């Protein structure tokens, strides 16, 4: 049995469970599948990887159009993503236990499977197939947000199809030039490399390509947003790390990604949209680390992926619980919810502390690695940008989300605490956020370090819990908190107001749409003008022909035989000229 289960990628277990779920009328059975299948996949990954001696396990080989595909490559890099994707799948399953929706259950299973399949892809063609499956399965989760989410889902799908097309074009060029499709280090200068970088960049939320995150994620359902926040963007980080580690331009792209969402997040009123910008900001740290490409930086990226999935998932879960109970996540309509939802408040505060990199919380360890790696490379401007972004993270995720939802002014809303399953999922995530940052023999930091790519000695050498490092981190946190309280006290903190904040998606949602509508109107008018002109022209021609050839026309009248002979001779000459000379 074990031999059979380990003969193909664990992703197929989830995908098969998803297919079964689609035809399963019993919600309870679907929920069992939702939790058990990622758990089983997690066990199988362990059995497969540790059941052999090599650093990488290659399996699940199939032949496709004469090309041998490796659908399962479990190595020191992919196993990190495999573990955390499976764990996230289990947590998502627990969080969504109360929801009786076949579409969400089915899509979540296939989406999770596609994510796992993509990180275990040993070649670019397998990656492409799971890449597309990821997009197709996740769009149904976006659409579960209701009719209002359909346009956002269509835009989401368009962006991801574009990403898939770019990946396909890139891999074809790459494969023809190199003669192989193995998914290893590609590099920006490789044939098709730029296309693949762009494809990964769309999914990673590069600046100006990021809007699908803030557009689609906040519009999905309570459970849907939590599921969506895990896989797509983190898979893109994996793909960048596998294919483009050390690509210098990623340092600057990542630095910009950390900074610009900060400004949008402070303007946003919808707290799930704030968290979507925050997601972009955290991805920026990872992209920057990939660009640096040193051992410490890559370790930091891998560690940050693990803890980011936990703390960002936790924050999305807490806002999901608020949306579930209150019916909105608009900051302007919330406040004082700690009275009704104390456990959710506590878990949200843990997530906020973790993302703010407070010592002894998840983000502190991983983010410190990335920032230290930037420091070691003497990228001073980028280093300052990351520090600025760290203060920004504190503003939008560390303070704004918990403060406006659970504290601030009392909105008077008295609701029930979140359902037990939501609290359980949040509790596990919160525990891991703390445990994985704890040093010492009983702490989980050793396990987090143990997950990191083993050939990297930097992880063991890096200790974030030094006096100077903790003091400098706390200086930033305390100064930012003081700035918040001061600005709030003197009335300079902007109030939360309902509004649509324009982002670069204005280019296609407003300008592009307007241009399209204008072009369509112009085309309609032009068509009418052309029809009128053609009708007039052909009318004149037919009128002339009628005058010549009709029974009453010129050719029907008697003509002298001499004129007829001349006309016929002329036509014969014209025919001969055409035949011989043209």
């Amino acid at each position: 049995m074990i031999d059979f289960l380990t003969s193909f990628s664990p992703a197929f277990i989830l995908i098969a469970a998803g297919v079964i779920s689609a035809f399963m009328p019993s919600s309870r059975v679907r929920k069992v599948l939702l939790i058990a299948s990622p758990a089983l996949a997690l066990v199988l990954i362990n059995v497969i990887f540790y059941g052999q001696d090599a650093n990488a396990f290659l399996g699940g080989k199939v032949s496709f159009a004469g090309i041998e595909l490796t659908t399962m490559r479990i190595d020191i890099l992919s196993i990190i993503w495999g573990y955390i994707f499976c764990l996230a799948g289990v947590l998502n399953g627990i969080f969504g236990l109360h929801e009786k929706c076949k579409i969400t259950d089915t899509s979540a299973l296939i989406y999770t499977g596609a994510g796992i399949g993509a990180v275990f892809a040993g070649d670019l063609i397998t990656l492409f197939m799971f890449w597309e499956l990821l997009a197709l399965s996740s769009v149904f989760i976006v659409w579960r947000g209701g009719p209002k989410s359909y346009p956002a889902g269509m835009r989401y799908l368009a962006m991801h199809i574009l990403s898939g097309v770019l990946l396909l074009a890139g891999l074809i060029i790459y494969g023809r030039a190199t003669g192989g499709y193995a998914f290893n280090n590609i590099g920006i200068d490789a044939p098709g490399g730029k296309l693949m970088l762009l494809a990964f960049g769309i999914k990673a939320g590069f600046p100006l390509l990021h809007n699908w995150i803030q557009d689609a994620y906040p519009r999905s359902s309570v459970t849907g947003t939590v599921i969506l926040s895990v896989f797509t963007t983190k898979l893109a980080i994996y793909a960048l790390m596998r294919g483009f580690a050390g690509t210098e331009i990623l340092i600057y792209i990542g630095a910009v990604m950390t900074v610009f969402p900060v400004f949008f997040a402070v303007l946003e009123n919808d707290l799930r949209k704030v968290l979507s910008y925050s997601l972009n900001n955290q991805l920026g740290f990872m992209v920057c680390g990939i660009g640096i490409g040193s051992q410490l930086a890559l370790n930091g990226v891998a560690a940050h992926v693990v803890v980011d999935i936990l703390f960002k998932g936790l924050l999305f879960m807490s806002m999901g619980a608020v949306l579930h109970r209150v019916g909105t996540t608009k900051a302007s309509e919330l406040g004082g919810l700690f009275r009704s939802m104390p456990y959710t408040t506590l878990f949200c505060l843990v997530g906020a502390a973790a993302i703010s990199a407070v010592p002894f919380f998840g983000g502190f360890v991983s983010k410190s690695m990335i920032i230290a790696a930037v420091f070691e490379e003497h990228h001073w401007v980028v280093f300052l940008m990351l520090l600025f972004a760290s203060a920004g993270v504190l503003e939008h995720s560390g303070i704004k989300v918990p403060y406006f939802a659970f504290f601030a002014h009392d909105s008077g809303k008295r609701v029930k605490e979140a359902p037990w399953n939501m609290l359980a999922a949040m509790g596990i995530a919160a525990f891991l956020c703390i445990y994985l940052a704890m040093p010492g023999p009983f702490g989980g930091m050793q396990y987090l370090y143990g997950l990191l790519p083993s050939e990297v000695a930097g992880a063991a050498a890096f200790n974030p819990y030094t006096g100077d490092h903790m003091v400098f981190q706390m200086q930033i946190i305390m100064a930012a908190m003081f700035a918040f309280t001061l600005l709030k006290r003197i009335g300079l903190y902007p109030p939360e107001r309902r509004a649509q904040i324009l982002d670069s998606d204005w280019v296609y949602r407003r300008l592009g749409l307007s241009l399209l509508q204008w072009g369509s109107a112009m085309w309609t008018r032009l068509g009418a003008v052309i029809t009128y002109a053609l009708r007039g022209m052909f009318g004149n021609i037919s009128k002339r022909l009628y005058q010549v050839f009709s029974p009453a026309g010129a050719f029907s009248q008697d003509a002298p035989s001499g004129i007829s002979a001349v006309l016929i001779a002329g036509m014969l000459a014209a025919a001969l000229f055409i035949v011989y000379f043209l």
Partner: protein
Amino acid sequence: MAKSDKPKLSAKEIKERAESHPMAVPFLWLGTAKVQRNFIFVPLFGMILFSVLGYVYPLHHPAPWDTFGFSYTVIGFVSYSFVVLAAWPLFKILSRPENYYGEDCDDDAKSDKKGDQ
């Protein structure tokens, strides 16, 4: 009514306690205006403490601008204030009515309490 039988809590407080989750009752003081007004002293104290500690634990690998022990206090304060203060002009430039794109506003309960579909 005897003096000792006088209720210690106001009617408003009793109502608030009754409406709150039992686990939240010991923490209701967090919502009082006095606590919210004076909370500023917590980060102020923390900021001063860690700024002083910056001299006790100077950075082993200082950046070129780390010439004094509380340089990151300054960076944190300035960065945070800049982000928040920038929101005023940015809101004027970038904000539009909620139905600007003609797709209604973003949330409003996407209930998960639906039956099987």
